[in-house]
């Protein structure tokens, strides 16, 4: 993905969607995003997203002991986060439909 602005816009929603499926942690979110095609998107973008979501109280964080040693932050979604996710899905569907209409028109033109 070449456009970082485009990525930034949808990454928060995708991260919320992953966290909404159950409590998870940073590396697992990274691998799930990569499995779904967000390859090489990292470059540090995930952690600021998680910080922003936590500040907005869309997710909460629990500090626990990792089986690998250091402390690990486990994230889970809040009520606010669920509402935000629904809104994101609606907005994304709407924008995608509109964008596809424009792009298809351009192709036909």
């Amino acid at each position, binding site marked *: 993905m070449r456009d970082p602005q485009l990525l930034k816009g949808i990454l928060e929603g995708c991260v919320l969607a992953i966290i909404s499926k159950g409590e998870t*942690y*940073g*590396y697992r979110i*990274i*691998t799930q995003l990569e499995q779904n095609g967000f390859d*090489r998107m*990292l*470059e*540090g*973008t995930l*952690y*600021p997203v998680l*910080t*922003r979501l936590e*500040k907005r109280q869309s997710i909460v964080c629990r*500090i626990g002991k*990792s089986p*690998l*040693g*250091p*402390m*690990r*932050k486990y994230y889970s979604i809040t009520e606010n986060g669920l509402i935000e996710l629904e809104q994101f899905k609606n907005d994304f569907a709407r924008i995608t439909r509109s964008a596809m209409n424009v792009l298809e028109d351009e192709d036909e033109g």
Partner: protein
Amino acid sequence: MRDSYVFYKDRLNDRFLSVFEKIELFILSCDMDKVTVESKLSELLDTFISAQEDGRTPETLVGEDVKAFCRMFISECSWKYRLLNLLDNIRWVFWVILCSSIIIDILPLVYEAKGISELGGMLLALKTPYLIVGICLTGFVATIINAVTRALVFKTKRTLIKSLSFVSTVVYFVCIFLFFDLTESFFPAEFDIPLWTVLVCGILYLTVYYITNRKRLKLYRSHKTDLFSAVSIEVDSEYDSFTMKRYIKEKNKALKRNKAELTFETFLNNEEKRCIQNYKLYTFFKIAPYIIVILSILNDLAVGNYDSYLQLSLSSMILLIIQLLVFKGMWKLIKTSNDIMMSWIREKRNNM
């Protein structure tokens, strides 16, 4: 006491460790408060170890440009965290002032050391304004050094990273020393702030600080792992090798004395009994300081070794504090040793 992420850094291989150390030095030079730094580095280290277990390389996580990764990683950490860092540092300055004033003012009541009080009071009165200016200057110096460190960290070879960190620390303390050495030339002796003013400000600041930061400090204390507890969490191969050698030694000793063969199960049972006995010592370590102080008071009263009840009370209080610290330290050593042994016994029994 060591921070938790520092204790687990050695689980990284050379490649991951090289990248992690650069990121660590960058983040440590970002003037953020300790809680945030600990939290971020701990999370990053966990991610690195997980990726290493999956056979990945650090470049697949952070990209080719580590500097850009670092900038992005801390992009959400605003001036608020730098302010928290400054408030944390000011806290320690006020603690030093308060402890110094207690030592200077109370000690002479306990001991016939008036000279200390006069000299110390003079020093504290003279240096109080310097301390306040010093806070601003050291903060400024630290900011400059940190900015230079951040600029150099990605241009430095891995072997020189630790040297860079060391040099930064040395330069910082040299600046502090030079400041205090030169202040007498610039500050007239009349420029003075009454000690009681500084003490009141200090107590006020510390009270407000701890009330407003209690949640943050509680979080920090809850996941800050000190060396003793961290060692007791898992038994490493060195401890295992050492204990097995001890078992073999005791087994051979029993054979030489024509006693019954010391089986491994018997050895484990004996060690477990010894640990259980040691755990019972907790009550002794808890009440021993109080018994010692009570005996000391009774002795002083009996021989008349006191000038006033105030002096007797103060000296007893100081003695109690020292005894509590000593016995607490001793108990912690014994408990840690016990915890490690119990952990080892459990591991061996699970494998049998």
